């Protein structure tokens, strides 16, 4: 191996960890966010970070197919989905601020607890991880759990969906940076699913609006056991 | 089965058929004496039977064949019963055919027939009577059976003749259990023969009558048969009581000499028994029908107690 690569390796490692930290930060920011538009922007930012981290991994490990997946991320998570979401919001003229079931500070506290759990769980994995990025799995897991929490606490359809997508981000991050990306077929498949899922969400928004003339999912509590 | 057994059997049967009404007559006479009445003639029962046999039969419109057949069946049952009881000798032909349990079954058969006959015409009194009869029956039967059980636990057998044989042979061992059994037996036989504390054979007062209520619709020869059967029943019971509790004198063989001796003892014992019955009837008062179950329940419990006493005191352990 040439020293340059090693150097860049170490550097790449640091960069990746930086990205990971930013991911987690953004996760918290989304959890705390009250305004829907900035929620979307944060989601876009997260996508961008994901893209950079993927590129870095691709560069440091010289895996060409990771560039592809980076491209996918860029086009899908940074450009396409935010755009669709913006249009949807304009179309559906959703109220701009987001109501949460749980109030923000509590949510944050729970989130921190979650991060602790996630790290604790991921510890053995990161220990035996031969790759340069140690903590990334833990952080990815933390992101996933945070988005999960967000899905629970948000009472509107759109934020819930954004949280869902953020969860996908976390998974992607785990897939690309913890393991050097999955086989191409899988990544394509996943991307496709996300895309279709998004479209279906879009359809649903309109339907739900039609039926309940609001996107508040608290209207959808009819089917239950008495 | 030897020749003497056959003879003894026939003698017993005939004797029972002939003497049964006499016993009833004797009881009535004693009662009359005890109640300071002038007694009817001793043979009054025979006269009544004769008169009834001669009389025309009046059948209710909707009387079924069962109604007409019942008297014969009842009579047959009673005759057979009194034939089975070892009155004179324990060496009888019919003895092995039916043991104590079958004997009780025989009485039950007769009772069922008369109860059904009572319901057949469908009058208010008939069904009332048969209900009461069955009520008394289902309490009296087990009591009687338990009396037999005590005896047969003593003698390790349920066949009447071997019971009586054992009881005659074991001279003068006092069985406390038999005392209980005897009391129970007396109570049962009072109830079974429609005697005073439970029923009154001489009344037709609607509220109290049991036996009479069932046979209200009978007349003529049918009534005669039933009355005769009733007297046979009394006779059989008395002989049974005697055979179980004061058995001495009943011969194990069937030789003519023994039979004569046995017959004479038997007559004396029957006379005494009849007097005792009359005495009881005079001294006790007719009880309400609802009290009858308690009376018989007591009898039943006494009988069971007798059995337990036997198991406690008299068995080897």
């Amino acid at each position, binding site marked *: 191996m040439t020293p340059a690569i090693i150097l860049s390796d170490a550097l790449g490692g640091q960069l990746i960890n930086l990205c990971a930290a930013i991911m987690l930060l953004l996760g918290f920011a989304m959890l705390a966010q009250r305004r829907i538009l900035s929620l979307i922007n944060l989601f876009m930012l997260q996508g961008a970070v994901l893209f950079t981290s993927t590129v870095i991994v691709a560069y440091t490990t010289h895996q060409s197919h990771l560039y592809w997946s980076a491209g996918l991320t860029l086009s899908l998570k940074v450009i396409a989905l935010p755009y669709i979401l913006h249009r949807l919001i304009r179309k559906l003229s959703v109220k701009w601020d987001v109501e949460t079931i749980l109030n923000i500070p509590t949510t944050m506290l729970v989130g921190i607890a979650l991060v602790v759990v996630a790290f604790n769980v991921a510890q053995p994995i990161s220990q035996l991880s031969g790759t340069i990025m140690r903590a990334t799995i833990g952080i990815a897991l933390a992101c996933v759990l945070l988005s999960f929490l967000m899905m629970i606490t948000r009472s509107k359809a759109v934020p819930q969906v954004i949280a869902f997508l953020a969860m996908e981000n976390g998974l992607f991050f*785990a897939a690309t940076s913890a393991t050097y990306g999955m086989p191409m*077929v*899988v990544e394509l498949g996943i991307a496709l699913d996300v895309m279709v899922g998004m479209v279906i969400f879009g359809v649903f928004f309109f339907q739900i609006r039609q*039926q309940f003339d609001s996107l508040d999912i608290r209207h959808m509590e009819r*089917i239950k056991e008495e | 089965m030897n020749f003497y057994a056959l003879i003894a059997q026939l003698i017993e049967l005939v004797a029972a058929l002939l003497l049964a009404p006499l016993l009833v007559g004797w009881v009535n006479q004693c009662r009359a004496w005890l109640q300071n009445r002038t007694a009817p003639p001793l043979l009054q029962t025979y006269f009544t039977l004769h008169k009834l046999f001669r009389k025309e039969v009046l059948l209710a419109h909707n009387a079924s064949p069962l109604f007409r057949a019942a008297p014969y069946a009842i009579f047959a049952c009673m005759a057979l019963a009194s034939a089975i009881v070892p009155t004179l000798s324990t060496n009888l032909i019919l003895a092995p055919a039916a043991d104590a349990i079958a004997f009780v079954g025989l009485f039950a058969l007769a009772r069922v027939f008369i109860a059904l006959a009572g319901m057949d015409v469908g009058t208010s009194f008939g069904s009332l009577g048969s209900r009461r009869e069955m009520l008394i029956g289902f309490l009296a039967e087990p009591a009687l059976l338990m009396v037999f059980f005590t005896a047969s636990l003593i003698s390790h057998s349920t066949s009447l003749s071997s019971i009586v044989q054992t009881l005659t042979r074991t001279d003068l061992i006092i069985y406390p259990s038999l005392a209980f059994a005897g009391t129970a037996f007396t109570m049962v036989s009072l109830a079974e023969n429609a005697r005073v504390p439970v029923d009154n054979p001489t009344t037709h007062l609607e509220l109290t009558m049991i036996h009479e209520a069932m046979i209200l619709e009978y007349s003529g020869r049918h009534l005669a048969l039933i009355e005769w059967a009733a007297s046979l029943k009394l006779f059989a019971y008395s002989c049974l009581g005697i055979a179980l509790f004061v058995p001495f004198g009943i011969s194990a063989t069937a030789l003519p000499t023994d039979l004569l001796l046995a017959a004479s003892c038997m007559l004396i014992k029957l006379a005494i028994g009849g007097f005792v019955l009359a005495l009881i009837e005079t001294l006790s008062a007719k009880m309400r029908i609802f009290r009858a179950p308690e009376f018989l329940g007591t009898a039943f419990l006494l009988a069971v107690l007798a059995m337990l006493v036997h198991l406690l005191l008299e068995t080897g352990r």
Partner: protein
Amino acid sequence: MSELVLVLAIPLITSAVLALAGHRQYAANINIAGSLLTLLAAALLTVRVISDGPLNALEEQFFVDPLNVFLIALTALVGFTTSVFSRPYMRIEHDHGKLSSGRLRLYHSMFQMFMCTMLVALSTNNIGILWVAMEAATLATVLLVALYRTPESLEAAWKYFILCGVGIAQALFGTILIYFAAEQVFVHEEGAMLWTHLYAYRTELEPTILSLAFVFMIVGYGTKTGLVPLHNWLPDAHAEGPTPVSAVLSGLLLNVALYAIIRCKVLVDGALNTHFAGNLMMGFGLLTVVVPSFYLSRQRDVKRLFGFSSIEHMGLVTFAFGMGGGVASFAGLLHMTVHSLTKSAIFFAVGHAAQMAGTQVIDEIKGLIRRSPTIGWGLMLGSLAILGMPPFGVFTSEFMILTTAIKHYPWATPVLLIALGVAFASMFGKVQNMAFGEPTVKPLAHNPALLPVFLHLGLVLILGLWIPPYLSEWFRQAARMVG
């Protein structure tokens, strides 16, 4: 391998065709034809596997072994019968004006798409593709559940979508973890996602990672299997979707999700060689048997009722696989088979019953046997079969499961039995009142296709009395693999 390609391709093509012509009068026939072809291809495949044993295809991305071959055959069969059933059913729905022809097109095309995704999920060798196929199946069925666009159906679909989406996401994380663990083993990383390779190297995989992975897997795919407490979407989706969809949902989808869990279990057992996965599955299984049996007794919606019963049976199967061992796994596979046959048959009958009564409310469905004996008896016999009455096959598998439980886990037996007893008491009373009594239901406009019902019940009956040797041979091999 050509058969395998056929099996996967035919539904895809049919779906494409129906996407264009699904609203036509003859669309239903195309649907049936496509399913029939799939069934034939699956039969060919089965024959091939019987003759030459397991096979790989498309550079090992797909494979067929005893474990999935009969599931493929079963899926194709139930898909075919369901398409036969849905022809008159959907026609009636259409006549009642519940569905526009556009929706009909969506239905037909999505139905085939769903079949395709199932078959892919069953036959793929790549756990990543397995995940993709499961997600795709979810998306397809979401559209199917929401077909009527009534508020209830939308709500049900939304819940289904969100809950299963989240669940599936967990499963993806598990998949990534397995892949991550595999990378530690394989120097050459291609094939690190192929189940066969993982199976070959299963003992060398890192235990801690795999245990975590299995947790994610069972939570993820368990959501789709309907394990308590992840089951909440299931009754809603069953009740609000069109009946053919309910039939394939509980008949097939649950099986496939469970199949995914079983595949992971094999790897995890290999890596840990403890009973960790088994215990986890047994725990979920018991919970999933007991809780739904209590839901049953106060149900008012008939399809919901049977949805809960499906949950219960999935719990039973999970418990069986959790116990492990030859007999239990055998019983589990058998139970998967008979349950999907019986339950889809029941849903066929229930669907027409609901159409006759014009409602799904149990108390308003009465006297089916008087009005239409075939439907009534189908419902009655099907329910008795699902309640574990001999001589139907469900009893056979329950017999094996219970006896194994008595042998190895005596403490679990009374729990199972109480649950089954309660389920019997609460379900049979309702079914009896639906089938018997003075009719309140009206006859159908088009005469129903009840061949599927009695075909399924007949198969279940045969399985109850006699299991064909080659089938039992498959089951044995599969059971040996599952361990």
